[in-house]
């Protein structure tokens, strides 16, 4: 409105024109005011706010708990790669000195990342220790175990490991190369299944969170319809109108995330007794992993983001209806 500019100068500052810095300050001021205001609105109805947050928390606990269980069972990728090793059993006649040379030859192979020699004596000691059969083995006339080299392949994909096994078997002095592929692949498939189920659940329950927040915010928008109409009439922009609702959504998400962290911790404590007893009966030590600081931060960030997104969808849909055409 350029002609209005003359008017403005005639009558002095008519409208408030903020500098760029002033605009940022007022933007920040509105964000602060709205984040506080929306938090106060949530606290004004503590029970219904808590119920909404609890619904969000329950939707988050299942996928997060499953992820933790997978993590605990070492079914996540990094752990699997580590266990993809080959064992090259050397011929019976090979003595320790020659075994060292063979190990060097194996480690020089380009597909090999790492080797570890287990001499016949070491193998025997390990065997005795793991089985607790010291007495029975001690009665054997000699050491029946061959020396072996544990090989960590550089590339852990099944095909290349299989190819590497063939190549290593051709090295003289190597009797046999074993790779426990059957269980490894079974484990891999199980892990993939677990991960996919977790992902699917996370997506489904994430949508659940969107719906819970969206519905709550829809009601809030409906309750403040008159206010929205008035501020729209006197020149409020859409971001201005949306802002308090987005903050409400984010608060709901954050609250739900905090409750979910609490539930996961409680659930972990509750299950840890039977889990470690069960593990002990197998002679293993296994503890349910805790969410930890990083995990909690990720969970809270996700839940806050989901709350914000749910609010955004709900508000945008309803603003379009309220907007006077």
């Amino acid at each position, binding site marked *: 409105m350029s002609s*209005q500019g003359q008017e403005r100068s005639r009558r002095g500052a008519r409208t408030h024109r903020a500098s760029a810095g002033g605009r940022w300050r007022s933007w920040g001021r509105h964000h602060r005011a709205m984040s506080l205001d929306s938090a106060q609105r949530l606290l004004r109805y503590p029970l219904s706010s808590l119920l909404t947050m609890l619904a969000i928390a329950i939707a988050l606990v299942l996928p997060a708990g499953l992820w933790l269980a997978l993590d605990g069972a070492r079914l996540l990728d990094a752990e699997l790669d580590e266990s993809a090793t080959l064992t090259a059993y050397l011929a019976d006649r090979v003595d320790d000195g020659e075994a060292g040379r063979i190990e060097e030859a194996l480690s020089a192979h380009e597909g090999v990342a790492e080797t570890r020699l287990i001499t016949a004596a070491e193998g025997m000691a390990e065997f005795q220790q793991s089985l607790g059969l010291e007495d029975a083995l001690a009665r054997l006339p000699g050491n029946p175990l061959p020396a072996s080299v544990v090989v960590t392949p550089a590339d852990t994909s099944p095909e290349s490991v299989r190819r590497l096994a063939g190549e290593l078997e051709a090295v003289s002095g190597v009797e046999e190369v074993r790779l426990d592929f059957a269980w490894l692949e079974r484990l891999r498939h199980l892990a993939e299944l677990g991960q996919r189920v977790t992902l699917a659940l996370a997506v489904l329950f994430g949508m659940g969170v969107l719906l819970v927040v969206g519905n709550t915010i829809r009601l809030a928008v409906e309750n403040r319809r008159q206010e929205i109409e008035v501020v729209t*009439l006197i020149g409020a*922009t859409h971001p201005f109108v949306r802002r308090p609702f987005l903050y409400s959504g984010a608060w709901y998400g954050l609250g739900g995330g905090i409750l979910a962290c609490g539930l996961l911790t409680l659930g972990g404590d509750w299950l840890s007794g039977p889990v470690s007893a069960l593990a002990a009966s197998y002679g293993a030590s296994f503890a349910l992993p805790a969410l930890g600081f990083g995990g909690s931060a990720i969970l809270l960030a996700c839940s806050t983001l989901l709350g914000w997104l749910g609010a955004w969808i709900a508000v945008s849909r309803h603003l379009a209806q309220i907007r006077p055409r």
Partner: protein
Amino acid sequence: MIAFEHVGKRYGGRFDALAHLNFRVERGEMVFLTGHSGAGKSSLLRLIIRLERPSRGRILVAGHDIDRLHHTQVPFYRRQIGVVFQDHQLLFDRSIYHNVALPLEIQGMEPREASRRVRAALDKVGLLHRERALPIELSGGEQQRVGIARAVVNKPALLLADEPTGNLDPQLSADIMSLFEDFNRIGTTVMVASHDLALIARLRHRTLRLHEGRLVADEEAV
């Protein structure tokens, strides 16, 4: 300030709420818009604040075709117009002060400056002593004056009022109208839609008369 050029507004493809409107309102003028209820007064005001868009013709406000405004520009356009509604459209969950401060809050005005303006506007309508009250504690006439304070707090170049005295007794109505005259005296263009013909006749301003969506009379002040 305002120019209607062959403006028509048709609802539902059949009903012409407004047709063949041609008139200009100069800067600094005070104009009454009158006619029976349903004559199209509110529709005309809704066109000016771009709550509706004309089906035909052009509306120029301060030289700009407001139909060409992008929807993201509309809020900034509306900030330059003060609007007084018949039902005052106050927010009942906040104090008089915060109702009047709303347009400044929307603009992001610095709180100290905003507070100065709000108090000046409330003082102008004689309600400074009620700034902490809630709208529900005020009489109808006082609520309408709060609505006026909110419309002018921004110092708009154009002030529109839709039946501002609709539910008020004659004395209060006259008070409200003299407030509008005060704002007009300091340069604000004022357009008041009203069917209170007796009051309008006494006030001697230009009057646009609508009948069934058409402009049937444009009477200069006598």
